[in-house]
């Protein structure tokens, strides 16, 4: 039986994208899988009694070395902020390509703590900073220095000792451009080096907390239990900066979604599902419930989604355990159809992620297809006709073409870049100044405008002639020819409407990162946790691919 890929007009709606969950395709999981055979080492740990100083961690295989350089600095209470307006952080990090020399460390000591206003070189690959969860960090130091393990309930509520507030790569602030490293086999998946940085930072947080506790009470202090460490991740505060990324990289977005959709299609097409695969699917599903019951958030929006997810999952588990006949052919297809008919988007996408768990042979090859050579699709095929382009718009954007942009609510917001921080922001067009400097992220509105202009143009005329007078829409002409080849390259929603929930865009990207426990702090930023439950670097060689469901939390 041949199953079709899901319709982009359903999958690419923001509410659906904002219901995605981590899966075997997620970058932090594929990163661990790739680097499990590498040699991990703590090369330098030069911290003072308060935990300030320099530390270096590395992954090495043959001649290739990646080194995380950590700079921990004293921070006054009133200087600590997760917001992008902060200028100082508890710790700052860079991933260096190779083994850093003393001169490199001295150079980086001056630049890395400055973050956006510092300058990195082509020898550095990623850059980040992080702040302590002071409440948790101090509690852990206090406990360990008194010879006892910390309160795991408190740790469970937060999930980490530190949270990063930005992770930069790909040429930002002088970092290496992707072209310098893109042919390295070990980093063929997207954001792999960003994942490495975050993973090694996690280890630094454990080493630092042990070190500070030890110095506080050398005779009595103990180390944080490795099992507790394993159940801690790294937090991350993420704002609107991520939202334009998925609009500005259409072929990359397509390749992420296409990998997920291809995995689902292939799994639904399995005629005889093996018992061991069903057992693994159900085992992961049941164990994963702990990640939902320990998912804490003050956001009413997210609480509602979690409640609905939990209820739907219980309904689903009840169905598969009591009513479903696993001996029938095309088991996963039947399960999928039941989910569509009986549960909400959040649950559907959750179970889709779970369906991938038994199928390494389906998922692993797809991970390698999740990058993109974006430059290849930049040129506009200007010899094509108006009729061709109109046809693409009608087929690929049918719902977008129905939106009435003369209505205020459909044109309510605009995206801009803040002059202060050079970061993307969203504002009300009718209340705020600056909409004349709008970023080209109102794709739905501009596609509709393009369609209207094409409709009064001669069908047989070519795009080069159309562009003479319509270069103001050149950006969407380019995108239309991209979506012709890449069906999942476009969000099929209005990104400037009154009812937009920007965190849906963030959630999409973060789910591909492999984040858990999305905690919206407003409609424009959220906190997440990464690598919670992941093996520690010393345990990587005995890596269990389903570690994400082994969390104690």
């Amino acid at each position: 039986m041949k199953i079709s890929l899901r319709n982009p007009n359903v999958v690419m709606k923001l509410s659906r994208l904002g219901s995605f969950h981590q899966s075997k395709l997620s970058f932090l999981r594929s990163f661990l899988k790739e680097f499990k055979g590498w040699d991990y080492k703590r090369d330098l740990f030069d911290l003072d009694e308060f935990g300030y100083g320099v530390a270096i961690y590395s992954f090495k295989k043959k001649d290739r070395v990646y080194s995380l350089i950590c700079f921990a600095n004293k921070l006054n209470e009133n200087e600590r902020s997760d917001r992008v307006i902060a200028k100082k952080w508890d710790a700052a990090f860079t991933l260096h390509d190779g083994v850093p020399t003393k001169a490199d460390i001295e150079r980086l000591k001056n630049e890395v703590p400055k973050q956006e206003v510092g300058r990195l070189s082509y020898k550095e690959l990623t850059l980040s900073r992080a702040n302590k969860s002071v409440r948790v960090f101090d509690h852990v130091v206090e406990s360990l220095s008194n010879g006892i393990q910390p309160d795991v309930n408190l740790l469970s509520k937060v999930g980490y000792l530190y949270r990063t507030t930005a992770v930069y790569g790909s040429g930002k602030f002088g970092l290496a451009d992707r072209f310098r490293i893109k042919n390295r086999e070990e980093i063929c998946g997207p954001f792999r080096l960003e994942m490495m940085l975050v993973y090694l930072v996690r280890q630094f947080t454990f080493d630092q907390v042990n070190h500070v506790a030890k110095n506080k009470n050398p005779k009595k202090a103990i180390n944080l239990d490795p099992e507790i460490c394993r159940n801690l991740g790294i937090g991350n505060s993420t704002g609107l900066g991520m939202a334009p990324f998925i609009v500005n990289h259409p072929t990359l977005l397509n390749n992420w979604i296409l990998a997920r959709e291809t995995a689902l299609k292939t799994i639904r097409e399995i005629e005889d599902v093996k018992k061991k695969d069903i057992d693994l699917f159900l085992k992961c599903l049941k164990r994963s419930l702990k990640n939902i019951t320990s998912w804490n958030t003050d956001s009413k929006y997210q609480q509602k989604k979690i409640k609905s997810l939990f209820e739907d999952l219980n309904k689903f588990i009840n169905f598969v355990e009591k009513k479903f006949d696993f001996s029938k052919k095309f088991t996963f297809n039947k399960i999928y159809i039941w989910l569509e008919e009986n549960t909400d988007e959040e649950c559907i996408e959750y179970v889709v992620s779970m369906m991938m768990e038994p199928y390494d042979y389906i998922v692993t090859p797809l991970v390698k297809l999740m990058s993109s050579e974006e430059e290849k699709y930049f040129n506009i095929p200007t010899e094509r006709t108006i009729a061709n382009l109109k046809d693409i718009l009608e087929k690929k954007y049918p719902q977008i073409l129905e939106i009435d942009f003369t209505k205020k609510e459909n044109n309510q917001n605009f995206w801009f870049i803040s002059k202060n921080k050079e970061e993307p922001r969203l504002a009300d067009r009718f209340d705020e100044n600056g909409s004349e400097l709008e970023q080209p992220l109102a794709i739905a509105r501009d596609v509709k405008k393009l369609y209207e202009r094409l409709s009064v143009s001669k069908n047989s005329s070519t795009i080069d002639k159309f562009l003479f007078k319509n270069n103001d829409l050149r950006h969407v002409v380019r995108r239309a020819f991209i979506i012709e080849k890449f069906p999942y390259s476009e969000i099929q929603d209005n990104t400037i409407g009154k009812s937009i929930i920007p965190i849906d865009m963030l959630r999409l990207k973060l789910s591909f990162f492999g984040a858990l426990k999305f905690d919206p702090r407003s409609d424009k930023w959220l906190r997440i946790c990464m690598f919670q439950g992941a093996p520690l670097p010393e345990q990587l060689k005995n890596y269990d691919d389903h570690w994400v469901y082994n969390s104690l939390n």
Partner: protein
Amino acid sequence: MKSLSEIDTVSKRASRAAGFSWGIAEEVGKNIRILEIFGLPGIRNLNGFLKKKKKSEFENLNLINLENKASNNQFCPIITGISFLDQIKTLEKLNEIKFENIAYPLLFLPFISRASEIIGKRIFLKFDDKEFLLNFNNNIYSNFLKNEIIKVANNISVKFIDNLDLFSDVEWEELHKLSENTFVEESDSLKKKGAGAGLTDND
């Protein structure tokens, strides 16, 4: 050192701020990246051009012909380049195209380089005495090695180079004969077995 990603982003935003549409600004970002990666002074020339654009009018050349003369002002290198790139499938049928008075012609060059890749032909570009051989947007061979701003080119010619061998048949044959020394003379037995023939060759 600035990364190519920074060069692309800043060039794009600056071009948009100078009045170009976002779609054109995206093209400029990519182009300045191309110039800088090939060691040509893209940022310097773009900066010079955008500063001058504030004070001066440039002529937009939309439809490109065999010979193109600006009526009063200099041609805008960006709009001329966009037109050239967009019309390349028509223009490649022409042997040589001439322009007079293009401002900041280095900004016109990457459009031609990209056009070379699209049509799969080398293009020879000449600005007055400066020569550039544009090889499928893979590299640029030139007699211009200075890191300087070129404010205007009076005479510009673009020649499409047919995909012809750069060597004679005799030279090729000589080299081919030498390469044959790596081959094995096939015996009857090898002829049968070497390519894995079955009982019937045609079934």
